[in-house]
């Protein structure tokens, strides 16, 4: 299939990307709007000698991922916001036991049952360690189908490289949108998984655990993990900049909101408005330096999110009061249009 262009839904592209990355173990549970991922996997994985298991709950699915990952294979699960909440204990355990895994969250409106419209309400949960304890995970936020496919492939490599759970954070629009997609056969990167539980005949037994009861043991482990997160901060930042160099108004938006903001920036430029876009592709680590660089040229920031204001806190931390940071949000399944954002840009620029 490599090099071929196909038409796919974002959810299907995520599933196919995982197959391309060598993931052969999928554990999932139905929830809208991500059902195409398990449905695709239930058909696709048997074709490539993989295993699809529909669990009895999201809690079971994430722990199946834990079990498979502990054995050294590439495993994943996917869900949508309420289901991701249920998985948080398992994600924390994955982080604690330093197990690689991919968790896909195709966000819907919340809190609670919310609705099934696209939303970005899970930014805090994804980037600040949604489960208990003191951990982070890499979070990728694709804004189109091709990027979703490519980032899923990357996510598996990074999960293995850092021995960490990685999240791909999309939303209902990304999951349901059909777009052309170029399939590829990624170079297989090999990772030494000497820690995996593969049967200890002829070697000392491996131990995979997140329980550290000895005095100072967990503190050491958490400090060690912190170094790992620092390495991610230094090396893994991904960010798209669009007409940001000379922008007076620096717009910051991710995922679907980022895609819409890009169209709005294009409209603004056509009208001579000097807007530019910063679209974080990794939400953790957050592209602080890109934001700080923009603060030198832009007079004002505007953060656009499909929530009531979550990433805006990270932008404000990065800007560190050097410039005013405005916010425009559409929570609970609301999706802004480029024309709507154009008006907001005008309002923001009048404040300069």
């Amino acid at each position, binding site marked *: 299939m490599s090099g071929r262009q196909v038409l796919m839904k974002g959810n299907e592209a995520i599933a196919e990307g995982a197959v391309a990355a060598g993931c052969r173990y999928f554990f999932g549970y*139905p929830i*809208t709007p991500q*059902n195409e991922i398990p*449905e695709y996997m*239930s*058909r696709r994985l048997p*074709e490539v000698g993989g295993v699809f298991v*529909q669990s009895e709950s999201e809690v079971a699915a994430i722990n199946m991922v834990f079990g498979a990952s502990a054995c050294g294979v590439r495993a994943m699960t996917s869900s949508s916001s309420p289901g991701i909440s*249920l998985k948080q204990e398992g994600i924390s355990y994955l982080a604690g036991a330093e197990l690689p895994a991919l968790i896909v969250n195709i966000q819907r409106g919340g809190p609670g*049952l919310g609705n099934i419209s696209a939303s970005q309400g899970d930014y805090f949960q994804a980037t600040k360690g949604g489960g208990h304890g003191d951990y982070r995970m890499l979070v990728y936020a694709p804004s189109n189908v091709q990027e979703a496919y490519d980032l899923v492939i990357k996510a598996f490599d990074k999960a293995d490289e850092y021995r960490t759970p990685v999240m791909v954070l999309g939303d209902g629009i990304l999951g349901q949108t059909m777009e052309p997609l170029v399939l590829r056969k990624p170079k297989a990167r090999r990772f030494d998984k000497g820690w995996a539980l593969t049967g200890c005949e002829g070697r000392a037994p491996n131990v995979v655990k997140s329980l550290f009861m000895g005095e100072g043991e967990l503190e050491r482990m958490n400090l060690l993990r912190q170094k790992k997160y620092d390495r991610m901060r230094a090396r893994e930042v991904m960010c798209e900049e669009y007409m940001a160099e000379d922008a007076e108004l620096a717009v910051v938006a991710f995922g679907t909101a980022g895609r819409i903001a890009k169209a709005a920036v294009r409209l603004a430029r056509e009208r001579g408005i000097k807007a530019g876009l910063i679209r974080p592709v990794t939400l953790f680590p957050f592209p602080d330096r890109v934001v700080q660089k923009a603060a030198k040229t832009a007079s004002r920031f505007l953060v656009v999110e499909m929530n009531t204001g979550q990433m805006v806190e990270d932008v404000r931390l990065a800007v560190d009061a050097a410039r005013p940071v405005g916010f425009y949000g559409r929570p609970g399944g609301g999706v802004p249009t480029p024309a709507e954002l154009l008006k907001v840009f005008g309002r923001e620029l009048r404040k300069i």
Partner: protein
Amino acid sequence: MAVIKLKELSEKEDRLTGGHRMCAGCGAPIVVRQMLLAIDEPVVIANATGCLEVATTIYPYTAWKMPWIHSAFENAAATIAGVESMYRSLKQQKKLPVDKDIKFIAFGGDGGTYDIGLQSLSGALERGHNFMYVCYDNGAYMNTGIQRSSSTPFGADTTTSPAGKAIPGKQQNRKDLTKICVAHNIPYAAQASPHNWKDLMEKTRKAMSLEGAKFMNVIAPCNRGWRTQTNDAIMLSKLAVNTCFWPLYEVEYGVTTVNYAPKKNRRPIVEWLKPQGRFKHLFKPGNEWMLAKFQEYVDDQWRAVVKLHNEAHPADQIDPEEGKTW
């Protein structure tokens, strides 16, 4: 208990009104309306996430003419347990009349009951809250797009157990949830079907008359997921009973009674499978073994429940093979 008369029912007001957005021909609202018609007392409902919950309560509307609560997918039994405990406490505090008889019912589909809700159901049954849990069983996650559940019958084609060349549909037999509930030694557990409204309503009334935790499993055909016509729900629920796929029985304080045994009209399981698109591939050459396996499973289940009946009722023996003429 009063005998249920059609005339009396026709004069009663529906407690689940029309205008809800369940699909045309869905079995679930028929089940709910019949069951609620059988109850005269005030009822408080908890509803698990699912078709019934989503389609009857599209805000700001509700089709329920009674107090109704929804929480998460996996927690209908826990939610009703909390509600029932609160009412019990109000009575103890004399904030409600002690003799005020309020009934508590939790409705959940098979996904929310057999799978993710099993833990909270088991907990509520074991603690013995005074409520009834009703599973409307359509054999898959219909609300999210027909994914397999642990109630999906063997062989069925669903979006996560697709029938293809490598794997011909779901490979496992369904979980016997009614037996699991019986194993909690609750006062009452039963299976029912909307085609036999009298049996369904009498069971509902009997369950409501007993103190403690009750469970009813009611088959609820789904034309979208079963891939049948919109007017097939009653025909298919009747066939489910007459093929012995869905035996009508009850277990009252440990005593098993089969309420209906097909005498001359026991049908082979193929008659229930044939009209359903989800089983289409079972009739392809090479898959005869699946039909045979399905029939064997149905026969085993039926004989097992009849054996329990016969042990409990020496004077009322059922021949499980009677009427099996094919």
